[in-house]
């Protein structure tokens, strides 16, 4: 089982008058086959948190432990912008992050491309694909290394509503089938409510304000009444914490 543990994580930038606290003494724990959303307004440190978890940034203080059954966990990432190598084909992009290029690996990559309905696009260059397709390649890439833990940084925020919606459904299916631990950053409360078991609420200044459980059955239809009610409740929580107005 995968486990993400964050203890007293603190991150600040700058000096003197320019000093900015990105994350303020964050403590959290995520375990098992869960879909956890991190929600908050811009400037609340969600991307910084993900960067630290992925090793791109180092914390000012505090510790981060990501394990799978007592070994270091294998992480996968989906970024806001697909971050594909534009000069390599789709398949090569997936192979780029694999440990080897054996036939078994290639087959595995092909399988995940098919899961995102891009099985026939392996030979195309990213420049030939739409934004939605590129993002799906990014998702396939993250899943194809069969990671223990999946980090996603607002993966659908650059897409139009219709594409985003179908991608959400695809992602959710993949999550349920592969039983991963997912940490999903978003600013869209509705998206968080639709996808997750648990929502971590961050406020501006990098403070973890609240930890909410969403106990509705999957799959969730955004048009469903229960889902709408849950969304309203979460939004009210935001208002209570005075996070909506500013």
């Amino acid at each position, binding site marked *: 089982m995968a486990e993400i543990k964050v203890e007293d994580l603190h991150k600040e930038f*700058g*000096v*003197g*008058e*320019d*000093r*900015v*606290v990105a994350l303020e003494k964050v403590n959290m724990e995520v375990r098992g086959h869960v879909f956890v959303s991190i929600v908050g307004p811009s400037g609340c440190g969600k991307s910084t948190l993900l960067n630290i978890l992925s090793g791109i940034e180092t914390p000012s203080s505090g510790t981060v432990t990501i394990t799978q059954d007592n070994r270091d966990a294998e992480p996968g990432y989906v970024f806001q912008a697909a971050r594909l190598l534009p000069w390599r084909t789709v398949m090569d992009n997936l192979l780029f992050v694999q440990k080897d290029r054996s036939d078994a690996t290639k087959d595995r990559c092909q399988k995940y491309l098919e899961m995102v309905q891009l099985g026939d696009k392996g030979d195309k260059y990213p420049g030939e694909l739409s934004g939605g397709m590129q993002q799906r390649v990014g998702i396939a890439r993250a899943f194809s290394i069969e990671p223990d833990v999946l980090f996603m940084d607002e993966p659908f925020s650059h897409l139009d509503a219709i594409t985003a919606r179908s991608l959400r459904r695809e992602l959710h299916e993949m999550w349920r089938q592969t039983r991963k631990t997912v940490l999903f950053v978003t600013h869209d409360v509705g998206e968080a409510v639709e996808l997750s078991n648990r929502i971590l609420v961050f406020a501006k*200044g990098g403070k973890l304000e609240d930890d909410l459980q969403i106990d509705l059955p999957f799959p969730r239809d955004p048009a469903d009444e229960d889902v709408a009610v849950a969304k309203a409740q979460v939004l009210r929580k935001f208002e209570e914490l005075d996070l909506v107005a500013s």
Partner: protein
Amino acid sequence: MATTLEEKAPGVRSAEEERLIALRRRDTRRKWFWRIAGYVVVLGVWEFLSGRMLNENLLPGPTRIVETFPQLIESGRFFSSFGATLTRIGVGFGLAFLFGVILGILTQSRWIDGFFKDATTISLVSPGLIWALVGLVIWGFEPQGWIFAIFMTTFALVTVNIAEGIRALPKDLMDMSRAFGVSTARRQREIVIPFLAPFIFTALRFGFSIGWKVTVLTEVFSSNKGIGFEMRVASQLFRMDEFFTWVLSFFVFALFLEKVVLQRYENKFFRWREEVVS
């Protein structure tokens, strides 16, 4: 926008802040050190070799060159030569710029674009020397000669940059202002001109820099004044200290133009870009 954990007394800095400021200062100091080192090394080696390994008459040392400089100014030749060259480039490039801007604007029409396409291409790839020789062999010392040379070398640069700017005009801003009923004149003033400013500036800068070189070339062949003429005379008479002094003054002038004139105005032209970027 700062969020602080504790209140700090003004003027008192934490250890970490001090460290960061010190780091930044160290970086700047280091850069200046190496920059000056570069000058020391190059000028030092040059001075050392001149008269020893290098024939002093062929390549005089930096001190010799700098000494000759005031002589040139005193005799009045400096300013009169620059004046002559600047006049040429003013006329030649002025015409090219005018034509280039008009053509750049007209290129919106596909037909005109097609018509002048090859001319622009050829102007962009041909060496200025070609135009200089052609112009000069036909017209000799007459102005048509050097005007032709400067014009042919530079007009395309202007055209291409202006055309690029016009193509990039933000249509959405134009539509928006039309929707709000803004008059055409105001639209030109508030949207088109500021937007085109950087492109015009770039056209000026490159056109001038290329035109300048061609102008000097024409003077080498067919003039009795100007920087090119002086350079040719100096090199033919093997007066290398004068030759290099002219080269140096060419630089001083280019530097002056660049730092004092262009960079001052550059900020005005490019200001809106800065804001977008930051």
